[in-house]
């Protein structure tokens, strides 16, 4: 919390005048701050060195942008400055606020406070069309194209050239061809169905759409994620052509080597704040970027690990589990009373792994055993009978009946146990749910309230509480604190630790590295569908894990 006020000062200082300061390039203040401060130490001061490579005028400037959602402060003072013709990289861990920021820029959300300045004027885009009109185009990771329309129809979707109410198809095709040529892809026929294009081709259609709007800023959300390795080079070539035409690009990626190659400047977000703005993308040491992504401003309170963890019997044993295209050759074990954490990015296969262990997905090979007995694959029922319970990643879409009362959500996996001859026992269910609510300190305590009226943290307690009933031996938790506020987080951590103390095994997935390190006894790191590292949590620190999680090349990729 010490650097609360710093971002403002620093960013303001980084106005156009600072750009001309030549000696700040090589060794900006704080960049060389040693890494030894660790996750809990003070993050290095915000630096805003000028980027000599960026000649353009400022097209977009965000000042102190704040956006809150129920239970979360998604953006908490974001500063951002983008110049014409630059590739501006946004860096941050999952949950740092990148997606919210994009949604504000693209008009899907409106900021609660703070200023968005576009081409020198304060603006607020009420909807995505307004942002498009103003010249800001967004290319989402999951491309929003209409598969059964042609390339041209997609490029001009919503603003087709018309005459007398008819679409000028010939003209549209001609314009599309021009745009595709501009993108260096004249070979894509404008009348071809988008469905028939490979994903790289679809991405080009998305960009064509952006250009059809005369976009001056294109936001790309992890564009390389859908591309094969050799196609990335082509993407970069297009980005360079765009920027040469004066178009600004906000580029979001987890891959450090991409940022080094294509980026001009980097802004780092953490916990909804700008922790560093306008760092030179090619020369800023990687360890500095990483520490700005991780430096804690909020200390989570993790329960103490038991000093001498009694090594319980082996509970879960996973042998060479694989699922085509998702993960491969994963072997792991969880002992009774042990918390095992899996660190990895979205797309690393961690959620898929968890769901496969739980039988919600069918493994293509490998086995899952509980207490030495193999669990029938591909059957959630069998997994539950074997003593597993899972709190899935997407609470609302995967775990809860939002309109139903709390107690019915708590007993969703167990209500049949108290039923007699098929008749449910509402009194018993409420009593059991009440007990769970007491143990988890559910607030408000009324179990007859619809679950929808609870905060994110309390909803998560309901999901976890579901598996406290019955005889769950192994709890699979996928992002248990996503969208949960700080206070409720600490409570959830206590609950999880208390469960382990009673002999329940826990397998925890989280993209928040400190959570995995703070809560788990043992940590597995997953990247691209494989477990790349395994160690007791005490032997790892956040930077090491992030390094493993993100690229592997993170440390060596940085110039000294």
């Amino acid at each position, binding site marked *: 919390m010490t650097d609360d006020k710093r971002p403002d000062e620093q960013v303001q200082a980084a106005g156009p005048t600072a750009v001309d300061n030549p000696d700040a390039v090589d060794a900006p203040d704080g960049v060389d701050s040693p890494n030894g401060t660790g996750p809990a130490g003070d993050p290095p001061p915000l630096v805003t060195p000028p980027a000599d490579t960026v000649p353009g005028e400022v097209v977009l400037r965000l000042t102190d942008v704040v956006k809150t959602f*129920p239970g979360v402060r998604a953006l908490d003072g974001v500063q951002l400055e983008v110049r014409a013709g630059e590739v501006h990289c946004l860096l941050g861990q999952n949950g740092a606020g990148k997606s*919210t920021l994009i949604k504000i820029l693209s008009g899907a959300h409106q900021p609660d406070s703070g200023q968005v300045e576009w081409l020198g004027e304060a603006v607020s885009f009420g909807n995505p069309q307004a942002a498009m009109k103003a010249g800001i185009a967004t290319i989402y990771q999951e491309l929003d194209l209409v598969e059964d329309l042609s390339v041209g129809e997609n490029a001009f979707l919503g603003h087709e050239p018309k005459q007398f109410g008819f679409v000028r198809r010939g003209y549209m095709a001609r314009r599309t061809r021009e745009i595709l040529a501009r993108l260096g892809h004249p070979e894509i026929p404008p009348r071809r169905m988008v469905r028939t294009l490979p994903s790289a081709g679809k991405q080009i259609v998305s960009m064509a759409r952006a250009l059809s709007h005369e976009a001056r800023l294109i936001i790309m959300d992890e564009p390389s994620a859908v591309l094969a390795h050799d196609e990335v080079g082509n993407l970069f070539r297009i980005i360079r052509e765009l920027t040469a035409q004066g178009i600004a690009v906000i580029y979001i990626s987890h891959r450090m080597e991409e940022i080094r190659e294509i980026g001009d400047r980097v802004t780092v977000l953490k916990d909804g704040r700008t922790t560093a703005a306008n760092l030179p993308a090619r020369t800023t040491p990687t360890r500095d970027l990483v520490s700005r992504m991780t430096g804690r401003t909020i200390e989570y309170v993790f329960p103490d690990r038991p000093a001498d963890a009694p090594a319980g019997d082996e509970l879960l044993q996973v042998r060479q589990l694989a699922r085509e295209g998702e993960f491969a050759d994963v072997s792991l074990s969880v002992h009774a009373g042990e918390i095992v954490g899996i660190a990895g990015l979205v797309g690393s296969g961690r959620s898929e792994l968890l769901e496969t262990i739980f039988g919600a997905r069918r493994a293509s090979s490998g086995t899952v055993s509980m207490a030495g007995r193999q669990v029938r694959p591909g059957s959630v029922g069998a997994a539950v009978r074997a003593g597993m319970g899972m709190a899935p990643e997407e609470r609302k879409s995967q775990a809860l009946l939002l*309109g139903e009362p709390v107690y019915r959500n708590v007993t*969703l996996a167990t209500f049949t146990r108290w*039923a007699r001859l098929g008749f449910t026992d509402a009194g018993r269910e409420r009593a059991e749910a009440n007990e769970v609510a007491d143990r988890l300190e559910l607030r408000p305590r009324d179990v007859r309230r*619809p679950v929808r009226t609870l905060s*994110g943290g309390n909803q998560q307690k309901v999901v976890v509480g579901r598996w406290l009933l019955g005889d769950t031996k192994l709890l699979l938790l996928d992002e248990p604190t996503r969208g949960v506020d700080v206070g409720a987080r600490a409570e959830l951590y206590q609950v999880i630790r208390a469960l382990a103390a009673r002999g329940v095994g826990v397998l925890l997935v989280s993209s928040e590295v400190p959570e995995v390190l703070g809560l788990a006894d043992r940590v597995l790191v997953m990247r691209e569908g494989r477990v790349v590292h395994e160690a007791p949590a005490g032997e790892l620190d956040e930077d090491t894990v992030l390094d493993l999680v993100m690229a592997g090349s993170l440390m060596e990729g940085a110039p000294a």
Partner: protein
Amino acid sequence: MTERTETAAPAAAAPPADRPTPVSPAPAGAPAHKGAGAPGNGNGRWSGDAGESFRRNLGLVGVLVVLIIIGIITRPDLYGDMNWVGDNIMSILTLASVVGVVTVGMTFVIIGGGIDLSVGAIVALAGVWSTTVATQSYGAGGMIFTAIVVAVCVGLVNGFLISYGRLVPFIATLAMLVAARGLAAEISDKQTQVSNNATINGIASNDILGIPVLVYILAGVVAAGWVLLNRTTFGRRTVAVGGNPEAARLAGINVRRHSMLLYALSGLCCGIAAIMLTAQANSAQAAMANLYELDAIAAAIIGGTLLSGGRGTIVGSLLGVIIFATITNLFAINGLSTEAQNMVKGGIIVAAVLVQQFRFKSLTQLLARNKLSSTN
């Protein structure tokens, strides 16, 4: 009553869910309400769900009252005269009985997230099959058994195609609509098959204590449906499977098997309806129960069943059926055409869905908001 209504998952009048509930202990009812008419507003009692569907059903009773007032004004001799009013109520309920039984099954299917377009065709097939010369030779018991077994089997086929064949419910049951009527025509050789069984025919013509047997059957099916939906594990699974199939699956519920059973249940209701309809006409033919699927779906929808699943009540559906029957009755006794009647019914369906959408919209917006907050 309270228990029952809790089953319904009201989309309506949702208070902005997921307000950040203060971490410090706060009065339960204290969260800020933005939504108008939030249930249980204020004093910490969250019987909100109960209140919600109760209010919805009360609205339907209001519609019914309006219809009766129209009846009293236009035909005081029937609606106002105490000597006739009992008879008229019975004729309305009798009119509602067959569709009512079908609607109970339809309500389950829709709450469970599906739709069954084949109900009319199943009624026809079951009716025709149970009145063949061969079947009639086994007597009333044989006819009832045949009607129910045939209808349940057709329902199982629907369910199997949808659950395990992964067909969209709309398509699977549309195909069954065509096929079952075809089979019914084939079996009956497109002839009307007269029922010679006095017991069967008596179901429609006999009264007990002045109340027609058909009305007893409707009451029995409605009561059984109510208990099944609100008091049994089957009902609970239905709401779970329709409300959030993924959550149900990850809680260990066998979603596919349950969906299949829902269509079998709809079939069972159709089998019962087939006997009732056969008794009314003293015959069965391939064209019987024409467009019952639309009547049943319409009744369920105006009764507050959410077409996307997860919410609905048996009482609401029953009220929906009775409202339609009352309209038919009103038009008939006033000598108005069925065409005008259909236009009014259409208007009522649109009005009911508009009301529902208006309320539902607030919930979906809410969900959208929350979803965005949780993905970041």
